[in-house]
């Protein structure tokens, strides 16, 4: 075999080795030695080449392009990271490494430390790592490994510290302990609860599988813990996992657990239901002991074929798999307490249906949430009819008989019960099913309508994701400050969006919607309005009048009108949106209920309490009915309803609702969750109003202490709770402690929000007032004067906070006999109050009353009389 242009010497070496390669391996070296008897150099070269060829089958088999963007290798583990001692490496992924470590202070415990790999501390990866850390910090659930700490190494790589879970992957645990089906289902339910919790806080795992779910024994009870939660988004597949390599390229992820939508070409549109699919695969594996798609078979196919199987082929039902696979049921039963026959009986029916429903190819046909999946498993365990199965009379009867086995004693009795039971149960089931079917029908109708738009909107979503994640994520005022660069980005985006998408009206509309939402978050309503308006125009020109996206655009615009207090404009739009959504999505769909909620809030803002309460109650009932009492929005609706009732004087019912919301929150989210703390705080303030200050004090103390523990002493989220705590202390008469807490709060706020932030200035005002009340008048005046100076500088003269500060200041100056200064201050306060709220407002009249008193004391009764008239007597 000659090669044109080839080097002659190489030619000879190559041909030698090629001949040798035709021989069986053992004879190759001998052949080469014989051929090069007289040329030692050639012999060595040829042998070197031969060994090189024989020794590495996979060298360069992975295309070069797969190497691009990969990390550099990690050195030996560091001795310590962020004060935690590093013991050993326990895993690594494409972007991060996990070490087992040890915390010594303040408590000694084993921890897992996850750190970004060397050479990968790019802005994007660090940003994503950070997003994951935040997501983890939001989660607080016994089935999810908890995060303890976070920071950065001296060379700038971020890390976070988590609970170290000492346990085995859930499938191995179940087999090692030979758990029965029921015990396996109990573990599975705990996993569902954890996944539901994560989804509720907006985290999608996307890589749920046994190796990411470890079972640890806590107080002798097996407790599954989901590890690497959400890390799937930030970190690639750990390289210790089997990774599939194909001829065309490399497929990341574990195909056995991958949902059809993850296996589809565009890779867009992965949502929480992707995790439901993976839960289905997990359930399958726990029940059968095998995966739905045989891994060996799967791996022998090409990439395209694997993806096609995942997208199109239905795996056998668990029971079919068990009975069909000959030995496998014996194998499965050997791994657990059940015998083969009873195992098969147990799987056939409900568990088959539940598993297959979770693993539906079409997302819409899966369970909508992890808690729905869990609820169906619980129904099965309780012997009730499961949702996964279309209820036939025979099925329902079987269920009824099983549930009431005690009643069914004789053959005759069976006959009677069968007839009666079938009648009654079917009727109940049918009416329930009808309601559900109607909801499903409406949903699928809406989905069908969305399908077209969805294809087009896929592009838009990609752009939006880019905007959301890369550019706008830092704008949420709850998670961080607004910096000028973000504003610049927004402005640039606003300028360009008009020309950027010349023939893609819907894409432009989506981008504008995102921009509008961001401006709305920032409180820049005019800019938001302009984007929402244009988005509406664009969608109106492209879409049917009944299109969901078009209705959404109307809704967005109405939210801006509401924020601007242009109620007359907002109301008809909300009404229209509410009616359209009722018609298109059904009365209990989330968007429908949300628009009703906004309508109610709108009426509330206008003081139309009686009208508002009707909608508000309907919204609350709708959420409870459709999503259960522990749903996040159900809880919010309770809150809204309570506020409204309180304002209507229905204090008792309002308090009861607040208590109920808190109880659910504590149960579902845990006592340390930020939402639970927020609700504790709200209820405490309610108790203050009811004069139950002692209780309120204890609650606020707990909130403040928990926050210090969970988020640290110096976190900006503590500011409002601390300030409420001080308020409760003041209300309970403990002014000295109130002053102490206000002083601490002020320091945190000045440091974290800045001395001119409106929160800081409000707290400074409260501190000043308390100082005055205990007679520390000089200090009170100093704080007040500083506050007023800063208010003028930052918020400007025309702000209610400035009005309030000047009112206090004027009143105190009057008491001190400095009448002229007092009159000046109160005049300014009055001007601000009336300009902002009108002369009839309670706050304007308060200023007038104080002025009258000052003038009385200064011996100017005529003027005082005029002001008393303004105060309204």
């Amino acid at each position, binding site marked *: 075999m000659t*090669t*044109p*242009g*080839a*080097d002659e010497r*190489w030619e000879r070496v*190559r041909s030698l*080795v090629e001949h040798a*390669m035709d021989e069986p391996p053992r004879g190759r070296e001998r052949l080469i030695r014989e051929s090069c008897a007289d040329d030692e150099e050639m012999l060595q070269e040829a042998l*070197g*080449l*031969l*060994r*090189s*060829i024989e*020794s*590495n089958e*996979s*060298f*360069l088999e*992975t*295309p*070069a*392009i*797969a*190497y*691009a*963007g*990969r*990390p*550099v*290798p*990690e*050195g030996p583990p560091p001795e310590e990271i962020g004060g935690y001692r590093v013991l050993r490496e326990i895993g*690594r992924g494409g972007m991060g490494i996990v070490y087992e470590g040890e915390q010594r202070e303040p408590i000694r415990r084993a921890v897992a430390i996850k750190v970004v790999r*060397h*050479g990968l*501390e790019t802005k*994007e990866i660090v940003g994503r790592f950070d997003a994951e850390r935040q997501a983890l910090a939001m989660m607080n659930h016994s089935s999810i490994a908890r995060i303890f700490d976070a920071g950065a190494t001296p*060379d700038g790589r971020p890390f976070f510290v988590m609970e170290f879970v000492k346990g085995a992957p859930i499938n191995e645990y179940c087999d090692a302990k030979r758990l029965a089906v029921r015990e396996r289902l109990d573990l599975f339910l705990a996993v569902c609860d954890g996944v539901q919790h994560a989804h509720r806080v907006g985290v999608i795992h*996307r890589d749920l599988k046994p190796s990411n779910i470890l079972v640890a024994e806590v107080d002798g009870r097996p407790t599954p813990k989901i590890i690497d939660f959400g890390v*799937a*988004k930030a970190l*690639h597949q750990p*390289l*210790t*996992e*089997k*990774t599939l*390599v194909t001829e*065309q*390229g*490399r*497929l*990341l*992820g574990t195909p056995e657990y*991958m949902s059809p939508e*993850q*296996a589809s070409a565009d*890779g867009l549109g992965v949502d929480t239901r992707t995790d439901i699919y993976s839960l289905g695969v997990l359930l399958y594996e726990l029940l059968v002991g095998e995966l739905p798609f045989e891994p060996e078979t799967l791996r022998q196919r090409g990439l395209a074929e694997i993806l096609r199987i995942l997208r199109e082929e239905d795996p056998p039902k668990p029971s079919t798999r068990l009975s069909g696979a000959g030995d496998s049921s014996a194998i499965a039963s050997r791994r657990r307490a059940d015998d083969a026959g009873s195992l098969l009986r147990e799987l056939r029916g409900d568990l088959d249906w539940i598993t297959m429903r979770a693993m539906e190819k079409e997302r819409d046909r899966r369970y909508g949430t992890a808690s729905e999946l869990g609820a169906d498993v619980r129904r099965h365990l309780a012997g009730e009819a499961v949702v996964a199965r279309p209820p036939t009379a025979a099925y329902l009867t079987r269920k009824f008989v099983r549930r009431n086995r005690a009643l069914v004693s004789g053959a005759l009795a069976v006959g009677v019960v069968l007839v009666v039971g079938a009648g009654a149960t079917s009727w109940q089931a049918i009416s329930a099913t009808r309601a559900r079917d109607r909801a499903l029908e409406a949903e699928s109708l809406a989905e069908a309508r969305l399908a077209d738009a969805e294809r087009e909107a896929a592009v838009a979503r990609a752009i939006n994701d880019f905007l959301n994640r890369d550019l706008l994520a830092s704008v949420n005022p709850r998670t961080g400050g607004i910096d000028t660069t973000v504003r610049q980005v927004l402005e640039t985006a606003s300028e360009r969006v008009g020309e950027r998408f010349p023939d893609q009206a819907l894409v432009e509309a989506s981008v504008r919607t995102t921009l509008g939402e961001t401006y709305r978050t920032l409180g820049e309503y005019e800019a938001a309005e302009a984007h929402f308006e244009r988005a509406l125009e664009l969608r109106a020109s492209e879409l049917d009048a009944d299109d969901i996206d078009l209705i959404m655009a109307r809704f967005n615009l109405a939210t801006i009108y509401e924020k601007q207090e242009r109620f007359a404009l907002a109301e008809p739009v909300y009404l229209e949106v509410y009616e359209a959504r009722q018609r298109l999505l059904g009365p209990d769909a989330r968007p429908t209920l949300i628009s009703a909620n906004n309508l109610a809030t709108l009426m509330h803002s206008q003081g139309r309490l009686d009208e508002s309460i009707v909608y508000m109650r309907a919204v609350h009932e709708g959420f409870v009915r459709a999503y259960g009492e522990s749903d996040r929005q159900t809880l919010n609706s309770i809150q809204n309803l309570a506020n409204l009732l309180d304002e209507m004087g229905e204090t008792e019912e309002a308090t009861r609702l607040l208590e109920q919301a808190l109880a659910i929150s504590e149960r579902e989210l845990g006592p340390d969750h930020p939402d639970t703390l927020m609700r504790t705080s709200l209820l405490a303030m309610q108790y203050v109003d009811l004069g139950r200050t002692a209780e309120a004090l204890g609650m606020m103390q707990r909130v403040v202490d928990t926050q210090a523990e969970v988020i640290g002493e110096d976190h900006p989220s503590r500011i409002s709770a601390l300030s409420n705590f001080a308020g409760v202390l003041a209300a309970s008469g403990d002014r000295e402690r109130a002053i102490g807490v206000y002083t601490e709060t002020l320091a945190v706020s000045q440091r974290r929000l800045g001395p001119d932030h409106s929160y800081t200035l409000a707290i400074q005002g409260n501190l000043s007032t308390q100082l005055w009340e205990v007679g520390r008048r000089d200090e009170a005046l100093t704080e007040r004067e500083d506050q007023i100076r800063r208010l003028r500088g930052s918020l400007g003269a025309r702000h209610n906070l400035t009005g309030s500060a000047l009112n206090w200041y004027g009143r105190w100056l009057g008491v001190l006999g400095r009448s002229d200064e007092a009159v000046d201050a109160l005049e300014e306060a009055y001007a601000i109050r009336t300009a902002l709220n009108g002369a009839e407002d309670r706050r304007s009249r308060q200023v007038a009353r104080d002025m009258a008193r000052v003038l009385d004391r200064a011996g100017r009764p005529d003027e005082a009389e005029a002001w008393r008239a303004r105060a309204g007597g």
Partner: protein
Amino acid sequence: MAEESPITRDLRAMQSGSEEAERRVFDLVYRELHEMAERQLAGERRGHTLQATALVNEAYLKLAAQDSADWAGRDQFLAVASIVMRRVLIDHARSRAAQKRGAGAAPARLIVDVVDGAAERGVDLVEVHEALERFERIDPRAARVVEMRFFGGLPMEKIAALIGVSKETVKRDWVMARGWLRTELGESGERDDDAGR
């Protein structure tokens, strides 16, 4: 009949030996592939590891959109594209390495995983590229096979058709070239620098 796109015209001219056309094609394809690769690398979409062939196909469809049914032109394009792909990837690796040196970190060594959890081995793209340049001088055809397969991601059959030899020959070239490169890169000894377990 639709008008020929510039790239198709250039590809044709290239076949009849126009160096000017070849340069134009190269520049155009480089720009396109570079941009596409950078975009995708920046995105790092999970489950969508870059595939050279997919990128090249996309580039071809985009560049020759008006008359994409010209399959002879497409083959010509693929041949060029693997050279371009090599350049794109090496430039990318070099710029990454430069960034890291700037940041005072370790030099860029890139890592590949191997089927079934076998030891992860490091391969430095730039080193492979430089070794391949040396190999080009002693066995140009086998070097071309490596370029098309390793950098261009083309299957054996396609390479055989493009070079005009049998598939068996391409396979032998591949085996020999890998053996040579492995020796040249000094990797025939045991080496598991990373995650060797």
